[in-house]
């Protein structure tokens, strides 16, 4: 029989955590694959890359992304895509545009019909990828070419291209899931002002 921990944490006592035990090495994909999350902070602002979530599918990724990347400030929309569905250019330095490095990199089969692609730029190292706009193209290779024509004059240390149909876009009608964010003041530093209490204490003790 395995001994159970007596914890100071009542939740842990209810879990029945055993003293002895060893975790079998996690198998690959125990934590699922990853999805890239983009979000829009305000109406009219471009979507920005926020980070990744591990999730079993895109619907879950959406649920997870919302609370991991938009539980503070404001948010008006979110996009989700599987990491491997993002096609990236090489990364470059400030003097050079990533579009200049492209030519021979992408040799996959072109699609027969036109599709939409979302284009993102890394404008400065250390920053996030920012959505530049949408292009129509016959494949990824073509999409980079189109992107270069449309956005080539903008700083582009690295370019990401994603087929629009691979993205899960938050529903226009579901924007209200973010509406009460500004009300959750208890999560904000500014809600905590203790200077009055400190001053009152100092006055009280100075008199004694």
């Amino acid at each position, binding site marked *: 029989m395995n001994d159970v921990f007596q*914890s100071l944490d009542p*939740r842990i006592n209810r*879990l029945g955590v055993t003293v002895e035990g060893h975790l079998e090495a*996690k198998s690959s994909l125990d934590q699922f694959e990853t999805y890239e999350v983009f979000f829009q902070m305000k109406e009219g602002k471009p979507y920005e890359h926020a980070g990744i979530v591990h999730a*079993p599918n895109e619907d879950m990724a959406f649920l997870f992304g919302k609370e991991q990347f938009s539980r503070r400030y404001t948010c008006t929309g979110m996009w989700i895509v599987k*990491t491997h569905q993002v096609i990236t250019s090489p990364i470059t330095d400030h003097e050079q545009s990533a579009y200049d490095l492209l030519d021979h990199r992408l040799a996959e089969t072109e699609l027969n019909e036109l599709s939409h692609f979302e284009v993102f730029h890394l404008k400065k190292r*250390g920053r*996030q990828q920012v959505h530049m706009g949408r292009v129509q193209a016959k494949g990824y290779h073509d999409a980079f070419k189109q992107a270069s024509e449309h956005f080539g004059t903008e700083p582009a240390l690295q370019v990401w291209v994603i087929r629009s149909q691979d993205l899960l876009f938050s529903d226009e009608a579901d924007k209200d899931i973010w509406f009460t964010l500004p009300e959750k003041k208890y999560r904000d530093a500014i809600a905590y002002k203790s200077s009055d*209490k400190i001053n009152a*204490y100092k006055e009280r003790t100075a008199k004694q």
Partner: protein
Amino acid sequence: MYGGGNTFEPIKATGLEMEDPAKLAEFEARIERGEKIEPQDWMPNLYRKQLIRMIEQHAHSEIIGALPEGTWITRAPGFRRKLAQMAKVQDEVGHAQLLYSAAETLGKSREDMITDLINGKSKYSNIFNYPAFTWADSTVISWLVDAGAIVNQIANAKGSYGPYCRALDRICAEESFHLKYGHDAVVHLATGTPIQRKMLQEALNRWWTPLMHFFGPPDKMSVHTEILVKWKVKMATNDECRQQFLDMYVPKIWELGLSLPDPKLHKNAETGEWEYTEPDWEEFKRVINGDGPCNAERLAVRRTAEERGAWVRKALLSPKATYVTPLA
């Protein structure tokens, strides 16, 4: 949260001679110019290994760091505290998520990191191996442990690895809530009833040694690796961080009429440096090597959480899933 934690382990700065000198020069020049390194850039192996180790330990510290304050999540007094305590502990879980993701961009999977944490192969900040006996302990953690973490994290946010810096920027913004919340809760106890004051003073006494340990051993006892400073992996020394912490927070503790259990603690007016009794570094080593009051419990809780969640993850895993390294 994070501390200087693990600096007793020397790193082996070998293998550099195997790297391509032209690429290495380009890499170093980029850091020298103050530009960030991104995951798709060429980087020396040693840089990759060190960053993985550091970010991974930081991530572990966040997820384990959710436990001491989690101890009080169901007992926080009143609505304001109840909500904030929930949000604060949640943020720490979120920080772990962000940091594991940053480490993943360097090529180590989250599965491997969690396995290494639970099986004791990988370390986390020592301070979370201490118990939170009362509500006051929890407030001291929220304020001062997070304050220490912020000193570290602000320094690291100026480092050279893009994904780590981006994670830290977000983390630091959330830490400012933790710090203010913790301070507010401490101030309420300090200026409250005699019982409240007493429980706070006792908690402060308990946490002082772990807080002094938090930034790691003194520089004169630590292993230095010039190359990590040059590559902007190590951004400040243990003593620099400790001094900054003391300078910012000891006056705020004293202004509340609270005492600290070190009669030698004072700021030397001439040097501008804080002087103090060296904490027991043998204890630090003992705890790091597994023999602290809560090491076994912390890891057992993580193990249990992973085991109890296993059926959920197994059921949802799609046979078509393929893992690729996340992008940024």
